[in-house]
């Protein structure tokens, strides 16, 4: 059974862009998710939103794998390479003799290398966050009640034929508040 169709599909249900339910707690949201899985809906088709991290529930562990740590290390390496280049280039291009000390000295330059390494790691982390968390791009489903502690579980672009099944799965847990957009 196909429960989700791309937008514009002939079966796309009568202008229903999304169907979702709001739950008062993580237990109900978890039950709704299990019901959707039982109805054959894939994880990638299910949207979950909450006002805080829900790591005590299974659904809170979705999409946990990330390359962010490695990307931060890469950013740090780029920062360090930039610092080596900057100090080398500037000191060798404009050599200033200070009491016969070496023109390019590692000890004082290590400080600049350290700072730029950390800066590179920090900037790489933030850029990765913006890109991978899809910040600035919004989402088809959202309900302001999420801010009040409700947990949203829903499916975007459901097919007409699957709508009834989805609604049944979403309303199965206690306290579900079904909505369509």
């Amino acid at each position, binding site marked *: 059974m196909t429960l989700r169709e791309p937008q514009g599909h002939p079966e796309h249900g009568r202008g229903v862009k999304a169907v979702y339910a709001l739950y008062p707690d993580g237990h109900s949201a978890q039950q709704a998710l299990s019901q959707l899985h039982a109805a054959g809906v894939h994880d990638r088709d299910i949207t979950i939103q909450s006002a805080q991290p829900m790591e005590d*529930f299974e*659904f809170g562990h*979705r999409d946990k794998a990330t390359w962010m740590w490695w990307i931060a290390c890469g950013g740090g390496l780029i920062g360090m390479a930039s610092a080596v280049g900057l100090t080398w280039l500037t000191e060798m291009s404009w050599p200033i003799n200070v009491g016969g000390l070496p023109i390019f000295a590692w000890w*004082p330059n290590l400080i600049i290398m350290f700072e730029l390494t950390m800066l590179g790691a920090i900037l790489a*982390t933030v850029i990765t966050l913006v890109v991978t968390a899809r910040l600035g791009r919004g989402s088809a489903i959202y309900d*302001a009640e999420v801010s*009040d*502690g409700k947990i949203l579980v829903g499916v975007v672009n459901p097919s007409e034929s699957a709508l009834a099944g989805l609604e049944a799965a979403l309303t199965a847990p206690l306290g579900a508040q079904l909505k369509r957009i």
Partner: protein
Amino acid sequence: MTPSHSQINSDLLRPLLRTSWKFYALVTILGGIVVTALVSWLSQMFYGFGISGIRWPVYWGFYVTSFVFWIGISHAGTLISAILRLVDAGWRRPVTRCAEVITVFALMIGAMFPLIHLGRPWLAFWLIPYPSERLIWPNFRSPLVWDFFAINTYLTGSLLFLLLPMIPDFAVVRDKSTGLRRRVYTLLALGWRGTPKQWHRLESAMAIMAIAIVPVAVSVHTIVSFDFSMAPVPMWQSTIFGPYFVAGAIFSGIAGLLIAMAILRRVLHLEQYLHPIHFENLGKLLLVMALLWGYFVFNERLVTYYGNEPSEMAVFWRTQRESFAPLYWTMVIGNFVLPLVIMGIKRFRTITGCVIASLGVVVGMWLERFLIIVPSLGHKYLPYSYGIYRPQPVEIIIAGATFAAMTLLYVLFVKVVPIISIWELKAGEHQPPDTTHAAAEERRLREQHS
């Protein structure tokens, strides 16, 4: 009683959504003081540096004292917040943002002082590494260039460390407001929805930044200490200056944070979120740092005394029992005696006690910076270089107004951003169920060890 999500939203968004006449009155008063300081600075630019008390041989006075002091205060936030995040201290949740804000504003104020101290701030771009045919490319081996990189890295990192966890809170404000405010916060929230993926990425980013920011914070004040310890000036050339400055910075930072938290708690009625236990925990940290500070001062003084080097001993006695002695002993009382007595006795470790001890520490730490700089510069190795420093009104006004500037920035910030991280507070308040085996096991172990 644990507050509900709606109550948390309502309590913490109240300062943003409602504005009383007191806010405008406070902003006007603080703004007036800041404008006075700006006029003083302009007059210094117009009439020249001669109207300040800075002249040979004491070239560093109130301005550099304030620079070091504010950079020290900046250690309150990001460093403390990062450490508490890394150790996953649950009580940090209402505290972190109050602290992180102090870092950003204190750094901004601190970074102003090199510009003020320049006398001709329009030439400040000379500090930035850029190619020059006049051979004034900064010498990368100079500690002053290290300051440029360290402070800018710390400021950038602290700003991002403050901004990232604000995104989910901007989303809450977006959902709770209307009209223009809603449009502004919609932009600021960057389309935040609170999907598991977004939460994981945000928490990973915060963890990475917490790891990165701790050594950066330590490096910043070590590098500020290098401005002194790399110079051949009596009582400056000391290998202990790095950790001594870092400890002092964290010390004054905690004091600043305690004062800010006490004021916020009272003015914004945050009694339900900022509990006495938060003050007590930070008070214990203040006590530890007071002991550490005392240890460093003892080291510095004893080694100098035992070494008995004439030029160092001259500075030593100037501070211990001559012209600077009143300031020196006020510093010792503020930084050591007061916190030791108040924070060391449990019954005094109240919110009021914490504030009194913190005020002593703030005064004491400002004096400490002053006493490191001025007595040494005024009494170097040979008699021809002896001199005195008398701060002039322009310096006193500017240095004093920075406290008003800090308060003003804080007040304005509280008006546009929830001062306690709403989502972190909610995450701390919600009761974890045992739906997964790992969660159940973790909870069982936590209860067993608590």
